[in-house]
């Protein structure tokens, strides 16, 4: 009697232990079918397009079984397994996310070199993946993070980010979208008389697209790269000071509600102030249309997108282009199958499915398959004075306690509320940049 009890509890304990330990790794030793595990972020484009693309792929490749894991917080779901050494084969996830999973893997040099995919022919087509991509979309810090000519993340969708506004309001008031900073501040004064604020942001983190473009506008592409690669004393240069000057001045025109709503819970209220004609501009991306599609809005409202105004009249303007990427972890089991699948994602067949959900791939000639509202956003690239700007801060080995993006963006909250001065901002940036520079070299 007693012995059987002991046995029973021992069995229970063992059972509990093995239950935790055993979790299929996804490799089917018995069958000849390859199981390809794909993890994707469920972003503004929804999840249907992935299931459709995978269906189309499986129809052509009966020997491959694609298993899709998709979620709005995909990082939280795949990270524990990755820590235990079980990596998905293909991951569709961009940089600039809060969890910074892609950045972490880049810092760790834990991504597979995808340069061969660029040279590979798109399955079922004559052209290579590289030939189909639009110019300048690979070969930047975003896709080639180590600057060694090798592509580690493939650009999956691209979208312009910039200042969003209500076209309807501008038409009604007869205002012109400002082309220079002077015009912008003048408009700020005009709007103030109507009780409208000039500027807001959903959360300070949305200032990424704003700042990257501004830095390039102020100092040109070389200066932008210097900032992104932490060149020594780059934040003490007159160009950096000018960028901070302009921003500090702009933040004086920020809607009074901005900081109070600039958190995860309330950021849509800041976005709503554009729809309600309480504020003129906010930095954002094209996903805003889908995100706010059910929100109430002022009569005659229509989304407009403009690049930042030029620093000098007629000067070159940059538009930060958000690129979401697809990558293969070095730890993946089926790397060859993964690469073939990635190449397929650039096929006309797949592109058509993605475009239906407004997910625009950087493939030549894609604009013709877009909806009217979306196509209007992509027109900013047709302005001769506007250049696409891809990428962000270069990755270095992680530096404890230093997050230059937080220093650059979040401080805006303190500038608006008066808790920090522009000088403190500049000093903190210089300090963070210097620490990262030392970690990078």
């Amino acid at each position, binding site marked *: 009697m007693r012995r059987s009890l002991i046995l029973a509890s021992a069995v*229970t304990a063992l059972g509990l232990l093995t239950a935790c330990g055993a979790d299929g790794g996804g490799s089917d030793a018995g069958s000849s079918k390859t199981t390809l595990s794909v993890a994707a972020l469920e972003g503004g484009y929804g999840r249907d397009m992935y299931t459709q693309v995978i269906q189309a792929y499986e129809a052509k490749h009966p020997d491959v079984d694609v298993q899709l894991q998709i979620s709005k917080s995909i990082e939280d779901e795949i990270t524990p397994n990755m820590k235990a050494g079980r990596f998905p084969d293909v991951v569709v996830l961009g940089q600039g996310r809060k969890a910074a999973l892609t*950045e972490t893997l880049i810092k760790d040099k834990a991504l597979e070199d995808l340069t061969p995919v660029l040279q590979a022919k798109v399955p079922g087509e004559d052209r290579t993946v590289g030939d189909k991509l639009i110019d300048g979309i690979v070969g930047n810090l975003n896709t080639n993070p180590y600057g060694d000519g090798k592509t580690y993340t493939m650009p999956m969708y691209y979208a312009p980010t910039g200042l969003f506004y209500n076209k309807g309001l501008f038409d009604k008031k007869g205002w012109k979208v400002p082309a220079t900073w002077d015009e912008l501040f003048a408009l700020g004064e005009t709007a103030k008389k109507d009780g409208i604020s000039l500027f807001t942001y959903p959360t300070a983190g949305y200032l990424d697209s704003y700042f990257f473009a501004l830095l390039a506008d102020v100092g040109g592409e070389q200066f932008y790269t210097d900032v992104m690669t932490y060149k020594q004393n780059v934040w003490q240069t007159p160009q950096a000071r000018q960028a901070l000057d302009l921003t500090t001045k702009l933040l004086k025109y920020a809607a009074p509600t901005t900081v109070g709503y600039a958190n995860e819970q*309330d950021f849509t209220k800041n976005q709503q102030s554009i729809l309600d004609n309480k504020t003129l501009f906010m930095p954002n991306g094209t996903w805003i249309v889908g995100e706010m599609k059910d929100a109430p809005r002022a009569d005659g409202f229509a989304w407009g997108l403009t690049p930042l105004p030029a620093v000098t009249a007629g000067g070159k303007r940059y538009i930060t282009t958000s690129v979401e990427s697809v990558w293969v972890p070095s730890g993946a089991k089926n790397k060859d199958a993964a690469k073939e699948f990635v190449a397929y994602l650039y096929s006309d067949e797949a592109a058509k499915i993605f475009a239906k959900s407004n997910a625009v791939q950087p493939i030549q000639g894609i604009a013709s398959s877009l909806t009217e509202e979306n196509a209007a956003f992509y027109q900013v690239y047709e302005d001769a004075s506007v250049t696409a700007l891809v990428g962000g801060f270069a990755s270095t080995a992680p530096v404890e306690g230093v997050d230059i993006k937080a220093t650059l963006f979040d*401080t805006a909250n303190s500038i608006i509320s008066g*808790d920090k001065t522009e000088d403190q901002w500049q000093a903190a940036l210089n300090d963070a940049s210097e620490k990262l520079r030392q970690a990078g070299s």
Partner: protein
Amino acid sequence: MARPAERGRRGNGLFVLACLLPALVLFVVFMIVPTVNVFRMSFYTWSGFSPDMRFVGLENFTRLLDDEQFVRAFQNTVALLVVVTVVTMGMALFLAAIMTRQKLRGRSLYRFILYVPSVLSVVVIAAVFSALYDQENGLINGTLQALSLDGLRQIWLGDQQLVLWSVAIAMVWQSLGYYMVLYMSGMSSIPESLYEASALDGASAGRQFFAITLPLIWQNLRTTLTFFVMSAVNLSFVLVRAMTGGGPDGSSEVLLSYMYKQAYTNSSYGYGMAIGVVIFAFSFLVSLLVSRATRREPLQF
């Protein structure tokens, strides 16, 4: 003659061990091992994924001393713990005393209302308070406006001096009812005769509270206090993450949220674990302090 009894006892011991074994194994695997790991990892620089782990000794800890954001997170945590603990415990005791001693009408209704927040998920509480604190049409600012006290309207979650206290209020609201119910059950077991006797001697309700109620539930209070301090550390993290994300500009960051940011967002896993060690030591120290400071001869009735 002693043998059979001894054998019986040994058999008992085996049985007890067997019963404890599953829990023991789980405790070791899921509590002891990870805790030891936290301590070990705090001596390394590691991003969390790569095989590239570098032993740096105490460097992570010396860095912490220079890290302004960490210092601020620490200050915020201490401030929250002190204020929230004092306010919650004080109010819970006060309310419990009123509810058990005074013959209030609708007592169980009050108890129910005050207890409800403890069953709500923290995310719901964060949403409730975000609505209350809304600077434009929130309940608090709306009420102030209705009372023509416009000058008192605040940007509750956007003001760096206020945001932490806004979080503190939500924390108090969440835990108050639970502790009140705990104290009520303690107080209701105090014999009525003590109060009757003291009332005959002319003791006021306040005097009765400090001379009878408080000493007699002291053991109860001690246990809950330690328990509360620990849960407040966790609660502050969840609320801060859901309500403010540590913002604006890090002004409502607490230890656990800063640890999370460093370990998972800034890829400084070792550094995050060093913060974890500090939290561990800090919690341990606080429990010790609380238990020392409140030690008294237990009174009985």
